[in-house]
């Protein structure tokens, strides 16, 4: 039996798994405990074969590795390699989408089209591309060229997407610090090179490289991916959706799409709609496409697809026995899914050549044949439904509802209804008068180590009580929507008076007959770009650096390397970044000091580790208070 207790839905499925003798991550974590202290502190080095070397944190044993690397060097090298893991994931994701777009422009991917032409034109103009007398295809190709330059440039010029998306104050600060970047792939290569045996042994230099990797992630990863997603599939608009595992329906063909890349999931959704009749012939009422993890967030933001499960529930959604096919692409896909799918009539379908799982069915998905493959996959799900009919399923009834689709464009459109010439004015005014005390961006995953403490929910509620507006992305957004924090009823229930007033007024202005929710779903984890854009716009409107705003970031339940590189981008932007559990830096006094203190004098950002949700919220509020005082508001 598990020692932890989770929310009712999660718990009921854990209980079912245990009754059926199916192992889940909860059990596997218990058999991993206690986890290695050297690993947790980051002071174990496996980079060369003279090691592995470990530095004794209590000072009695070895203080250096065989090569002479101190704990500071080891921790900083390991941290940079984590950053590379995260940044490579996002840059790889962005590159996939850019190349899909390119194939479409060349006429080789007929399943795709330009959906948000305005966004394409806006980006082209801001990239300095001349658009007169050119077709959309020609303009698109030039935009692709600019994007691909960011992974091929050898001339040392700053990356196009960085110039496109960063504000001038931050750009100048990075220039001054010598951390501007030119080519994401070169930076990734150099980071692996400099951390291999016998290269960079200066912890400060290594930490600067970490900041550069944060910029790689932010611009060649997040911003680039979000921009091309929007061009291809449309920029999200505010809508309402249902969430939690209860969105599964035993009488429908349930297709859970899991992973990150909408290039796949958009086509699955399209074909699920087209093949309704096929499903009905097999005795199903309909086809029910539900979202898991971030590709779920992508579909929910653009099409209102129900959000079935966050990453930690990806196993549990299968334990229902009601999923006919789980279709996955890349990132955050646990190998255990194949073992669980095997216990039911569930087909686990992998689609990326570099993401294969023994026990899954592999259907290589390429954009040139997207329609055939998506149709094929949906057909496999229908076949699976036929086999499942009559089998015992357990779908917890609990569902929640919430608002999603808070792209920056959607927010600005809403604000234009209040002040069309200066849309950000109402937000700025309310920040100044304190109705909005500050803004905090919650990002990242649900942590199996902290989920039973309700870390995210408790922190969020504490911040709302203190009139801090919360914006969120990724699986953290799914925690919030499941907890009802994206429902308009949460506004009166959890917000302080000031924030309540603002959200009521905004809801009215936006034409809803209810207040806006206090937690805004801004998208998938690559959509942290949207948070960056929003902060940049606010800072520009006020005429200050992002680091001067009364705002903070938080990865309240750190899991992925991607959260490390996103967090580092936030640090480079000058934000206080709250993280729990601790990143693997505490083995190094230099890294700990710089990241939690000295960095504030360089970029304005710093790391704040706190595992207690109430204390963490208090720490963030005191930071916001400090920033407000400095701004004189």
């Amino acid at each position, binding site marked *: 039996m598990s020692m932890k207790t989770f929310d009712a839905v999660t718990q009921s499925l854990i209980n079912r798994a245990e009754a059926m003798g199916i192992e889940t991550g909860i059990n596997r974590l218990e058999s991993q405990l206690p986890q*290695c202290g050297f690993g947790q502190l980051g002071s174990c080095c496996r980079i060369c074969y003279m090691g592995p070397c*470990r530095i004794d944190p209590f000072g*009695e044993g070895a203080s250096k590795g065989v090569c002479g690397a101190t704990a500071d060097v080891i921790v900083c090298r390991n941290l940079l390699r984590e950053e590379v893991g995260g940044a490579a994931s996002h840059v790889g994701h962005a590159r996939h989408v850019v190349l899909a777009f390119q194939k479409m422009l060349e006429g080789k991917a007929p399943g795709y089209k330009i959906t948000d032409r305005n966004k394409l034109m806006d980006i082209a103009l801001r990239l300095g591309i001349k658009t007169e007398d050119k077709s959309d295809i020609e303009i698109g190709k030039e935009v692709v060229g600019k994007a691909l330059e960011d992974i091929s440039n050898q001339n040392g010029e700053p990356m196009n997407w960085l110039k496109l998306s960063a504000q001038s104050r931050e750009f100048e600060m990075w220039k001054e610090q010598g951390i501007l970047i030119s080519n994401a792939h070169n930076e990734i290569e150099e980071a692996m090179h400099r951390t291999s045996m016998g290269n960079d042994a200066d912890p400060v230099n290594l930490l600067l490289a970490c900041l550069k990797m944060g910029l790689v992630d932010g611009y060649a990863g997040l911003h680039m991916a979000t921009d091309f997603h929007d061009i291809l599939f449309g920029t999200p608009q505010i809508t309402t959706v249902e969430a939690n595992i209860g969105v599964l329906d035993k009488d429908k063909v349930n297709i859970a799409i899991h992973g990150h890349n909408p290039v796949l999931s958009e086509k699955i959704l399209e074909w699920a709609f087209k093949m309704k009749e096929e499903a009905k012939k097999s005795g199903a009422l309909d086809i029910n496409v539900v979202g898991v993890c971030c590709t779920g967030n992508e579909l929910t933001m653009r099409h209102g697809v129900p959000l079935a499960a966050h990453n930690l529930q990806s196993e549990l959604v299968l334990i229902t026995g009601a999923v006919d096919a789980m279709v996955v692409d890349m990132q955050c896909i646990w190998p255990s899914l194949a073992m669980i799918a095997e216990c039911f009539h569930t087909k686990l379908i992998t689609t990326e050549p570099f993401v294969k799982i023994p026990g899954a069915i592999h259907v290589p998905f390429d954009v040139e044949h997207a329609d055939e493959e998506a149709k094929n996959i949906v057909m496999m799900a229908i076949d699976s439904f036929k086999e499942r009919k009559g089998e015992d399923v357990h779908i917890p009834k609990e569902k929640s509802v919430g608002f999603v689709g808070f792209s920056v464009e959607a927010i600005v459109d809403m604000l234009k209804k209040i002040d069309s010439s200066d849309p950000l004015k109402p937000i700025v005014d309310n920040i100044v008068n304190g109705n909005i005390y500050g803004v905090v961006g919650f990002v990242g995953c649900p942590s199996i180590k902290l989920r039973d403490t309700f870390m995210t929910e408790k922190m969020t509620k504490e911040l709302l009580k203190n009139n801090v507006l919360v914006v969120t992305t990724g699986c953290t957004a799914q925690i919030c929507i499941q907890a009802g924090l994206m429902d308009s009823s949460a506004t009166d229930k959890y917000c302080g008076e000031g924030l309540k007033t603002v959200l009521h007024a905004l809801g009215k202005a936006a034409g809803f007959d209810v207040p806006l929710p206090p937690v805004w779903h801004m998208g998938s984890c690559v959509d942290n770009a949207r948070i960056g854009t929003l902060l940049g716009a606010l800072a520009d409107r006020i005429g200050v650096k992002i680091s001067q705003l009364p705002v903070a970031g938080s990865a309240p339940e750190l899991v992925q390397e991607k959260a490390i590189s996103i967090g580092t981008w936030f640090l480079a932007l000058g934000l206080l970044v709250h993280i729990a559990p*601790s990143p693997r830096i*505490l083995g190094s006094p230099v890294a700990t000091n710089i990241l939690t203190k000295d960095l504030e004098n360089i970029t304005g950002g710093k790391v704040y580790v706190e595992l207690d949700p109430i204390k963490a919220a208090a720490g963030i509020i005191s930071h916001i208070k400090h920033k407000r005082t400095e701004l004189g508001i």
Partner: protein
Amino acid sequence: MKEIFIDIERCTACKSCEIACAVEHSLSKDLFSAIFENPLPIKRVYVEKAFLFSYPVKCMHCADAACIAACPTGAMHRNHEFGSVVVNTDKCMGCWMCAMVCPFGAIIPDYAVKTARKCDFCPDRLKEGGKPACVEACPTSTITFGEMKDLFKSKRLLSAERVVKAVLVQEDKKVTPLEMLRSIENI
């Protein structure tokens, strides 16, 4: 009475026991706080290399402990609740006789406080029905904790199995030892 049992064939020298021991003997009993304590907490188990093997050296809480006999002040004594050998630091005068007579090198002179330092069997954990920190931390079950009769029973069963396998392999000359072992594994 429960005791510690060490199986050297399983030790991978990960030093998890060392860290867990130091954390258990810190003020906070939490890794992330312990590394910032002053003075730093001190471990009582040492993973040492022996040929190609490694071995977590610690006090074995001997039934007839030489260190107790050698202690001139009565500082080294037996805790009858847990059967452990422990130091009363108030009585210890730092003569290091215990360290000299310990056959394992498991008692360490702590010059900072001028008393002997050794494994205390994690009394806080045992009082709550738990296991010593090193046992809980060991990922390969090199260090186990249990009733001595059970620990030896499992060891006897293991050696009985080995003897049977060895004899069977010797008696059947027609197959190679490896094939024989494989067929035995399938029994």
